[in-house]
């Protein structure tokens, strides 16, 4: 079917275009590498001493959590880019071309997988420098990295929707921050959920961030896996599907101004 072939080719054309933004405007790279590194250092050396994590060194506990948090924000590039494209009339141009209707979104979110790969690499290098060590077979580690990318991809769709909904790139940024940031903290990413008050703990235990972070600890550190890994995959797929539908329908109706 040439429709599918065109859709894939359009996606790749636009993914390349989105990804080229990184070397062309490298200031963006700072926000998703330097910021997580600062978080690692801050938690490892400032808060870490005050947090007890039974069974783990804090740095081992922290790295999977911070990787998941970083992934959830990687899609910000998509929100920013879409919001700019809308403002500059590029979305109008794309919508007037005989191209796949979804490719602007699938291209952007695919490019995020590339930038997220860079983030993961930087984070793991920094993690190892400050004392993180894997305690799992290579296959599990690879599976963990793929899970991170899947989770990041799901949040790219959340951000795609946010970018199409916001009135400006700045609004997209703060909306993303307000919605996602608290979710990452009320989870097992930085502290054991057992240390939280009962009501928060109840929420934290069903929070997809907790489930994904626990899955990452299972894959990177050999923690008891339970159903976390499948739960995390299910959440990622669910979030991706739900927001992809929302974002695509929003895109089709997108109007400049």
């Amino acid at each position, binding site marked *: 079917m040439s429709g599918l072939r065109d859709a894939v080719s359009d996606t790749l054309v636009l993914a390349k275009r989105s990804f080229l933004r990184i070397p*062309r405007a490298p200031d963006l790279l700072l926000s998703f590498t330097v910021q997580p590194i600062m978080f690692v250092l801050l938690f490892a050396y400032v808060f870490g001493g005050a947090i007890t994590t039974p069974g783990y060194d804090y740095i081992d506990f922290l790295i999977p959590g911070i990787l998941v948090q970083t992934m959830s924000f990687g899609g910000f590039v998509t929100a920013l880019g879409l919001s700019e494209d809308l403002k*500059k*009339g590029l979305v*109008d*141009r794309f*919508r007037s071309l*005989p*191209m796949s209707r979804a490719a602007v979104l699938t291209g952007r979110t695919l490019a995020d997988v590339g930038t997220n790969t860079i983030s993961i690499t930087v984070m793991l290098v920094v993690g190892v420098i400050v004392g993180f060590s894997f305690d799992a077979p290579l296959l599990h580690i690879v599976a963990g990295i793929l899970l991170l990318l899947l989770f990041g991809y799901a949040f790219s769709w959340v951000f795609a929707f946010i970018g199409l909904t916001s009135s400006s790139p700045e609004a997209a940024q703060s909306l993303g921050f307000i919605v996602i940031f608290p979710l990452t903290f009320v989870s097992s990413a930085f502290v054991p959920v057992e240390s939280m008050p009962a009501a928060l703990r109840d929420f934290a235990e069903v929070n997809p961030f907790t489930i994904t972070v626990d899955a990452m600890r299972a894959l990177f550190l050999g923690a008891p896996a339970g159903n976390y890994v499948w739960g995390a995959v299910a959440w990622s797929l669910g979030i991706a599907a739900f927001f992809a539908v929302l974002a695509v329908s929003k895109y089709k109706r997108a109007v400049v101004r």
Partner: protein
Amino acid sequence: MSADVAIEAEGLRKSYKDVLALDGIDLRVPAGTVLGLLGPNGAGKTTAVRILTTLLPPDGGSARVAGLDVSRQAAQLRTKIGLAGQYAAVDENLTGAENLEMVGRLYHLPKGEPRARAAELLERFDLADAADRLVRTYSGGMRRRLDLAAALVAQPPVLFLDEPTTGLDPRSRIGLWETIEGRVAAGTTVLLTTQYLDEADRLADRISVIDHGRVIAEGSSDELKDQVGGERLDVTLESEADTEAAIAALEPLAAERPALVDGVLRVPVRQRRGMIAEAVRRLGEAGVGIDDVAMRRPTLDDVFLTLTGRAAEPQGGDGEEGEER
């Protein structure tokens, strides 16, 4: 519908919430010609373009572009059109060449073609030297040229240009006009929206004046000017005391009775040929001294002001507007 009509719209209607943007627009553009859509800000020009380029579904009415229905055959229709909007819709973080190649790929041109077309267009638009520079280093005029080039990548038979020269310096404007004329000479059909009368006058074969979402006049530039009033002879007399004698001498030439307005005798005429010489001869015979004689033709500005009721001053105040609506 006949094959040589490139754009045809009937009764297009569109409202946004409680604002009526298009109130039943009819357009007809024969293939290979230029239609100028002329109107003040907010008249509905951009809405019409957005509907015809499939960006916006109409609330009512129908439209076909290159023989394809904007609602039912949108996907095929998009292969036949190029759009250059009011914004320079190009990616700042790509080079000029990369922008055009990207558009070529998204039109699904055969392999190798996007690059070749990009090089050719950059050359033609005087951007060859800047081909490998990031667009964010381009000037406003260069961006607009690149934007127009992007609309031409697939050599579409129908081109939509929404205020293509707004905000351009005079030299860039003329350059763009020449490019558009070149495309039309090669057989492209163009729908052009503009607020600039000289632009419509120069480029458009036919002009539709729209205001408040309706076409209020349609015709060639000359027809529109005639609609407002044909040519007239303005005669300044040496002495106003001769006015009656002058009117008597010129009345046989005039389409209507000449009248003195602001010290100038206005003589509406049916045709201009030989008119000045004849008027001078008659006035000479009548012994009337002449200070100045000139033929005057209404400009598109006169047409626009008369039709839209937007006079030079903010409000007409003489009820003309009420009558119009």
